[in-house]
């Protein structure tokens, strides 16, 4: 393909205007040592038809829920997305515009982001939310860094629950390892699959900066945020809740009700395709008093010179393009279009719809569990309350997975890699997309 419209005549005319006699002359000042060997060694261009076929062939080599039964969650969830979502975000006015630097011609994006910020506040029960960050994991890291900006220098110990998503823990560790003053500690989980609040309280002290826990956590278990917050308050540490499955907040008490300081998470469940885990977006909310320490973009309401309501990017003095090395974060391009999709998604489901879908998840997952508990081959690993994921233990996970694969079923995510102590366990996810027949098939396969 070629997306350059220039004909030979166009090029001549333009060169004549410029006063040069060749395209090469345009980069005459680039050292010959570089120009000389700049040729790109890749195949020639293809027709759109060939490209389409080639990509279709690649796509066909990935298994999807269309031909497999996948009980996979672990931070990315297969949820129903109304067609109206993609119809909206495919509108080129949204998809092919830049970050709204010129508000007079970006009110579409700006108002949608203002609505997004409000929806996230409502969903999390928090006071303010930014216009999204990259993903849930980097949101967790940014939250820890934000706590660092708020807490005194005497507090630089970060406590992270081992029941928090392993990849999120890795990202927090990666972000913090660059800062010499930071220390990172892990808090174990107990037999219920929840963070061990006893152990947490013991580790908390006057050097503690913040505590990060999943809500629900990686095992699908609903953490006791009230107890955790109490422990944090005692020690003067901030509490950061991390939600990988925000649909749960359609039903569970929101982090805000437990007065967490910062509530972050992954937004994929809210109307964004799984797409191998990206792009989606990280949501980031906190208490109002911390707003100027927040990372990322914020959209605010204002008026134009004729008094009409309008929206603008605001509090930009926190950001890299103004504050440079003193910025609260380096983030620039974020995940706006995905956040827009979530805004449409939440608007479509609305108050009753979001709750309904959350309920279906809870009921199907628990129904599946009760059926699975009949199977001799597996048993429930944790007894904590859960949303749409739970951990099963089995004598021979590998054999069991192989047996399922033969039936085009992936029963869950093996925990061996991330939790050696749970070598014999796997994480099962059941959403509204898993039809009852599918669940029966899983049960039958496991009982065989």
């Amino acid at each position, binding site marked *: 393909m070629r997306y350059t419209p*220039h004909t030979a005549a166009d090029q001549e005319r333009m060169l004549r205007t410029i006063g040069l006699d060749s395209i090469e002359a345009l980069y005459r000042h680039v050292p010959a040592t570089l120009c000389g060997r700049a040729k790109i060694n890749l195949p020639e*261009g293809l027709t759109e038809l060939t*490209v389409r076929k080639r990509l279709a062939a690649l796509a066909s080599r990935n298994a999807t829920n269309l031909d497999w039964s996948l009980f996979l969650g672990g931070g990315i969830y297969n949820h129903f997305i109304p067609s109206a979502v993609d119809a909206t975000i495919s509108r080129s006015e949204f998809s092919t515009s830049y970050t709204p630097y010129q508000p007079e011609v970006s009110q579409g*994006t700006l108002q949608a982001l203002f609505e997004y910020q409000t929806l996230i506040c409502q*969903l999390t029960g928090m006071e303010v*939310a930014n216009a999204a960050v990259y993903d849930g994991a*980097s949101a967790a890291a940014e939250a820890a860094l934000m706590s660092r900006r708020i807490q005194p220098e005497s507090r630089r110990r970060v406590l992270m629950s081992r029941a928090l998503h392993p990849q999120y823990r890795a990202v927090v560790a990666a*972000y913090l390892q660059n800062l010499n003053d930071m220390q990172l500690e892990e808090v174990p989980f107990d037999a219920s699959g929840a963070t061990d609040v006893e152990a947490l309280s013991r580790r908390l002290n006057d050097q503690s900066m913040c505590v990060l826990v999943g809500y629900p956590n990686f095992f699908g278990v609903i953490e006791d945020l009230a107890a955790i917050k109490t422990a944090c308050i005692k020690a003067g540490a901030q509490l950061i809740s991390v939600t990988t499955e925000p649909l749960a907040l359609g*039903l569970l008490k929101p982090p805000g009700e437990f007065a967490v300081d910062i509530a972050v998470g992954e937004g994929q469940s809210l109307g964004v395709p799984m797409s191998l885990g990206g792009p989606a977006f990280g949501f980031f909310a906190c208490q109002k008093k911390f707003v100027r320490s927040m990372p990322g973009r914020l959209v605010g309401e204002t008026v134009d010179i004729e008094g009409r309501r309008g929206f603008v990017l605001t509090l930009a003095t926190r950001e890299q393009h103004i504050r440079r090395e003193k*910025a609260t974060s380096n983030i620039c391009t974020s995940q706006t279009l995905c956040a827009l999709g979530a805004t449409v998604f939440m608007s479509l489901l609305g108050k009753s719809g979001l709750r309904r879908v959350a309920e279906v998840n809870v009921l199907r997952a628990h129904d599946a569990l009760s059926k699975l508990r009949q199977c001799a081959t597996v048993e429930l690993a944790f007894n904590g309350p859960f949303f749409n994921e739970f951990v099963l233990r089995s004598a021979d996970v590998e054999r069991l997975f192989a047996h399922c694969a033969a039936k085009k079923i992936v029963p869950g995510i093996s925990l061996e890699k991330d939790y050696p102590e749970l070598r014999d366990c796997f994480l099962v996810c059941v959403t509204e997309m898993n039809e009852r027949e599918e669940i029966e098939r899983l049960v039958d396969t496991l009982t065989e």
Partner: protein
Amino acid sequence: MSIPSPNNQRSRAAEPKLIFESGSVGRSALFWPPEPGKVEDVIPPALLRDDIASFPELGELEVLRHFTRLSQRNFAIESQFYPLGSCTMKYNPKINEVVARFPGFAQAHPLAPAELLQGALALLYELEGMLAEISGMEHVSLQPSAGAQGELTGLMLIRACLTERGDARQKIIVPDTAHGTNPASSTLCGYDVVQISSNEQGVIDTAAVAKAMDERVAALMITNPNTLGLFETNIEAIAEIVHAKGGMVYLDGANLNALMGIAKPGHMGVDVLHLNLHKTFSTPHGGGGPGAGPIAVKRGLADFLPVPRIVKRGDQFELQESCPKSVGRVRSFFGNFGVLVRAYTYIVSLGSDGLEEASRMALLNANYVRKKLEKSYHIAYHEPCMHECIFTDRMQQRSGVSTLDIAKRLLDYGHHPPTIYFPLVVSGALMIEPTETETPETLDSFIDAMLAIAAEAKDDPDLVKNAPYSTPVRRLDEARAARKPVLRWEAPAKEGKAKN
């Protein structure tokens, strides 16, 4: 016939409401029969929330109409010329959108066994190779979500590598022309920023680097072409100076659209760089993302790349998770895969010849605009420009018209303004990057608008200073927005969902 008063003649269409100001209690676009069973029987009621106060309650058409109308209040590439400097707002091909939506891509789960993801892994593996070839580097990680995260990741690699050598060092040298993310990423990576100035020609000279470079400097971050649209002609010598003192060279590759087939960063002495796929490689910017900021490194740094690495064994692709020296992860899963699919599609569509043509035409368009405007707007630097050119408002300031005014007036002419007031080293900068996908006719209509505005600035400065007039809203009070921030909608009364 009485002349109707202009005020009455205005559109009487209602100003858009917020989604929270529409709807009716109990409405929802979701149709889903209740599931058998009661949640309270399986989850302790104490854990459950009440209904979300004033969450939206609308029907499907209502929601669609709301967002369709909002979209009509945006400028965008597919409706307007959008020459935002440093943003490479090129055409985002439609085929990329079709391909990224293939169920095999859009519905792939990242934690499915690798055997079930061979198509996706093959694509990622091939894309790594293509980006290495295009940039002249050796190894690539596709994980970073955007350019800034690429910078952080690249600097983390440098830190890890230097640490292994025994000393992570303390400082990063950053030119004054650098994008704000460069210093911000340096700080985030635990480094102090040493800023050096570009010279009168707008580029970094070896002396400046030599002066700033010492054993406490971990790396120099350099952008090429830099944000003035100028090629850093001394880059090879500069790299030698940095290397001689044991430092590394980080290249901000956001402007690669100027270089394909013209110069490879890998030949400039660069150790690490990031690329903005949402710029050079045509993925749509989405009003502020998603993007993708892969990094590319020389062999020596490969061991430090983020995990997982994708490795090919025979004709199978596998994930290598345990890389002892790796900096770890900067985000979950594989990065912005959907964006990577689009970039892959773009690269195979254009091929080497198409990519090289793209850069050449990007240079042609920028130089054409520069030539046509040089008499009416003050040019910041007279050196030949690459893919973008920079003017200032110096001539218009005489009548009190600023860069901001010029930008706003351009809106009335139906064009998106250039990037303004960046880079900071140029006062009142107007940074114009047309990109290669624009026709000369479009450039001409933009040029005509700029010339007309230059004339207006002389003859009727207030006309320009009060622009825009034809936009959905006029100039907005940004000071007020920042003074007492209103960052979310609040229900007027208790659970007061506005019922119009």
